[in-house]
């Protein structure tokens, strides 16, 4: 890969404070040099331990940007990008900072015409792992610094038990489809990686020296391989826990039908969710009707229809961000469901969601070949 | 490379020079042909009857032996064994229910799972060793030797077992070229050799051999090359009578391709087993300075 180191002063090597400063200075330069007019980034929120998302327009605002923060506070960034650009492309050049899973889901949203990349400079941020919002909050409240904890884990390459499950099994620590990446994995100094010609141009515009970096490639590869092994084992376990209708039912026992998982899902872009439409038979009046007619309310079917139906709709494009799990107020470990199932579905179509913009999702791809489904299966 | 090898009856009897020369030249190429520890008749024609499942047990056992040797490829030299084993194997792969019944006939053995692949030695040389590598091992190029490859039927038909193009095979041509020989292209290289008719209807076989050989000599061919013991037998042994019958008939020696390999690799003359030939090849080989 090619890119540019932001800090050549050897004294600052690996200095956490400097990393943050370097990124912010880079954002500042983007605004100063008028590469972009706006930057959409996680931002320090004085009122709350959790960062907020903010569009900054003035170079001096960049000081308080917090793009490397190891948490996704609520909605993924791709949802914001979708909301800003869905109707029409934005009028002024905007840089947006995305964690790799957010970048991947943005790719999927573009495929479904729910986001527009025109005038957008996408900047991926390396993610070694992020914390559940509640863990993050607790840490801050107890005086621990989540960012430093994550960086230390990265330095020792030991992972962190507290990372979200989706992060522990994540195979996309580095975004693959952005113009630029803010690189912290496999480097000592902050490295801005250029993936596209637009990215390279940007680096040149702010006067950075472009170099090859093979060492980082190797390190990333090693990390993904290591994670891949772990993921395989964990996913197998997850599916075992869910095998068969009885276990699945148990899994959803605490579900209160709040549909937060759907709300926060970057792939669930529908204006009106089918399972909340009037067609959905398990709405209030129907429950009453069933109760009268059959002496039972169909809560079970309602839950299953929602979760399995949603799985059928989004599993082909799921990017394994695990935000559904984070959003669940009942602490149902939803990633155990959507992670491995989506992986299986996508594997069967030889598709990886969020990887390439030009690859069409399985459900809109016309496979003019026999998929062999009518062949007799051995019983 | 160790490859499980199925000999078959002919190669242990009148065609032992085929086996000997094959073993010797294979080892030059770093290939060890490992004979199956306890092998059974390939079955010749009987296993090809679709419902006579009991007759497919012998081939199935041969495949089990192959797996016991730790291989999934089984090499044959004899074209007939190749054809029979390959067809039977395909049948078992395509009909899992029949395979199950065949397995049920052999209660003391493991079940055969259909995972062995039958290949002919020519395929091994072409696809796994590569003719380029063979060319490197040639010490005595067969320069000036005009040879006509003769395929017969079993390597090419039916289509699902053909080791090469049905109508325009080139594998033997390519092999012999890599040994430095000059190729004579006979239009009758796929014509029937007379097969078993040699037993009860010798005239038919004899006539065919006459046509096959004269088509070669007319085109300047000095020798015929084959991969089938039965073809070899007919083409070689029936020529004697032809000289009596057709005045002016010109005999040509018939070789197994492995004999020419051994020759080109510069191996001892004794591995060739030239004494077994009915049509004496010595003069020809001497005239080309090959022995």
């Amino acid at each position, binding site marked *: 890969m090619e890119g540019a180191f932001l800090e050549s002063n050897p004294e600052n090597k690996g200095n956490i404070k400097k990393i943050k400063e370097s990124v912010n200075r880079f954002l500042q330069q983007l605004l100063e040099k008028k590469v972009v007019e706006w930057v959409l980034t996680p931002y320090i929120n004085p009122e709350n331990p959790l960062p907020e998302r903010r569009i900054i327009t003035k170079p001096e605002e960049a000081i308080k940007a917090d793009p490397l923060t190891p948490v996704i506070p609520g909605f993924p960034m791709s949802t914001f990008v979708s909301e800003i650009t869905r109707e029409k492309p934005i009028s002024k050049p905007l840089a947006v900072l995305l964690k790799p899973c957010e970048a991947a889901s943005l790719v999927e949203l573009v495929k479904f015409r729910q986001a527009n990349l025109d005038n957008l400079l996408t900047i991926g941020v390396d993610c070694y792992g992020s914390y559940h919002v509640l863990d993050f909050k607790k840490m801050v409240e107890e005086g621990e610094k989540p960012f430093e904890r994550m960086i230390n884990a990265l330095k020792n390459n030991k992972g962190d038990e507290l990372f979200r499950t989706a992060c522990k099994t994540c195979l996309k620590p580095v975004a693959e489809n952005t113009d630029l990446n803010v690189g912290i994995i496999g480097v000592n100094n902050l490295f801005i990686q250029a993936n596209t010609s637009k990215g390279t141009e940007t680096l040149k515009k702010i006067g950075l020296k472009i170099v090859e970096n093979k060492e980082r490639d190797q390190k990333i590869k090693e990390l993904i391989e290591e994670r891949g092994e772990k993921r395989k084992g964990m996913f197998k376990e997850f*599916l075992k826990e869910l095998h*068969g209708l009885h276990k699945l039912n148990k899994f959803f026992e605490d579900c209160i039908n709040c549909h937060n998982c759907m709300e926060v899902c970057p792939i669930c872009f529908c204006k009106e969710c089918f399972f909340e439409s009037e067609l959905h038979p398990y709405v209030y009046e129907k429950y009453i009707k069933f109760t009268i007619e059959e002496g039972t309310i169909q809560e079970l079917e309602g839950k299953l229809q929602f979760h399995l139906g949603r*799985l059928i709709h989004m599993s082909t494009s799921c990017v394994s961000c695990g935000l559904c799990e984070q959003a669940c107020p009942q602490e149902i470990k939803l990633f155990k469901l959507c992670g491995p*199932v989506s992986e299986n579905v996508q594997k069967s179509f030889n598709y990886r969601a969020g990887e390439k913009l030009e690859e069409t999702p399985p459900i809109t791809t016309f496979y003019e070949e026999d998929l062999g489904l009518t062949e007799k299966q051995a019983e | 490379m160790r490859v499980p090898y199925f000999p078959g009856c002919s190669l242990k009897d009148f065609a032992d020079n085929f086996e000997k020369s094959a073993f010797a030249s294979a080892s030059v190429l770093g290939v060890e042909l490992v004979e199956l520890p306890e092998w059974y008749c390939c079955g010749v024609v009987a296993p090809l009857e679709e419902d006579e499942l009991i007759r497919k047990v012998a081939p199935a056992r041969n495949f089990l032996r192959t797996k016991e040797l730790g291989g999934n490829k089984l090499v044959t030299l004899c074209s007939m064994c190749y054809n029979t084993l390959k067809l039977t194997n395909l049948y078992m792969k395509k009909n899992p229910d029949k395979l199950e019944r065949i397995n049920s006939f052999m209660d003391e053995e493991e079940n055969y799972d259909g995972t062995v692949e039958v290949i002919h030695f020519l395929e091994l040389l072409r696809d796994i060793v590569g003719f380029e590598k063979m060319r490197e091992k040639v010490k005595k190029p067969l320069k000036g030797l005009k040879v006509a490859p003769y395929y017969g039927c079993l390597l090419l038909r039916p289509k699902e077992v053909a080791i090469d193009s049905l109508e325009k095979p080139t594998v033997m041509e390519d092999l012999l070229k890599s040994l430095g020989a000059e190729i004579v292209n006979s239009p009758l290289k796929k014509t029937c050799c007379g097969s078993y008719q040699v037993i009860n209807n010798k005239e038919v076989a004899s006539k065919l051999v006459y046509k096959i050989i004269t088509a070669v000599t007319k085109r300047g061919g000095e020798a015929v090359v084959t991969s089938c013991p039965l073809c070899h037998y007919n083409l070689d042994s029936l020529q004697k009578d032809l000289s009596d019958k057709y005045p002016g008939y010109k005999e040509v020696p018939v070789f197994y391709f492995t004999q020419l390999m051994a020759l080109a690799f510069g191996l001892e003359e004794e591995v060739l087993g030239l004494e077994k030939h009915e049509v004496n090849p010595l003069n020809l080989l001497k005239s080309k300075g090959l022995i």
Partner: protein
Amino acid sequence: MAEKSVEEGKEKFEPVIVGFFCRWCTSEAADLAGTIRLQYPPNIRPIRVMCSGFIDPIYVLKAFLEGADGVLIGGCHLGECHYINGNYKAQTRVKVIKEVMKSLGLEEERLRLEWISTSEGLKFAEVANEFTEQIRRMGPNPLKKLKRE
């Protein structure tokens, strides 16, 4: 599987199978099977749809959630779709559901896709026989047992 032997000892289990048949091929084949009086079990309850490509995976899910023990989807043979390629779309969608069901151990064999053309009345009857038998062997939709508990 544990669910399999629920009905053992009671009366013979008669499965309920919902069929989605495209109107151009499989529905016609079902008509033909009837016309030539081929006999097959009455367990399959058919819905005539325009095309196998019409079938939203959610319909299949809905059928299972309403208690169906099996779902049979019938379309024209590949390359013979009246709407050119609706059946290709159908197989993609069926594949998604099957993969989800398989991953979660939800007995994907309860869902079957078959290509049955207008003239294949016999195949229709054979599939109906065979699939009914298969579902009978598999036993009732585990959802029913779950609801009784």
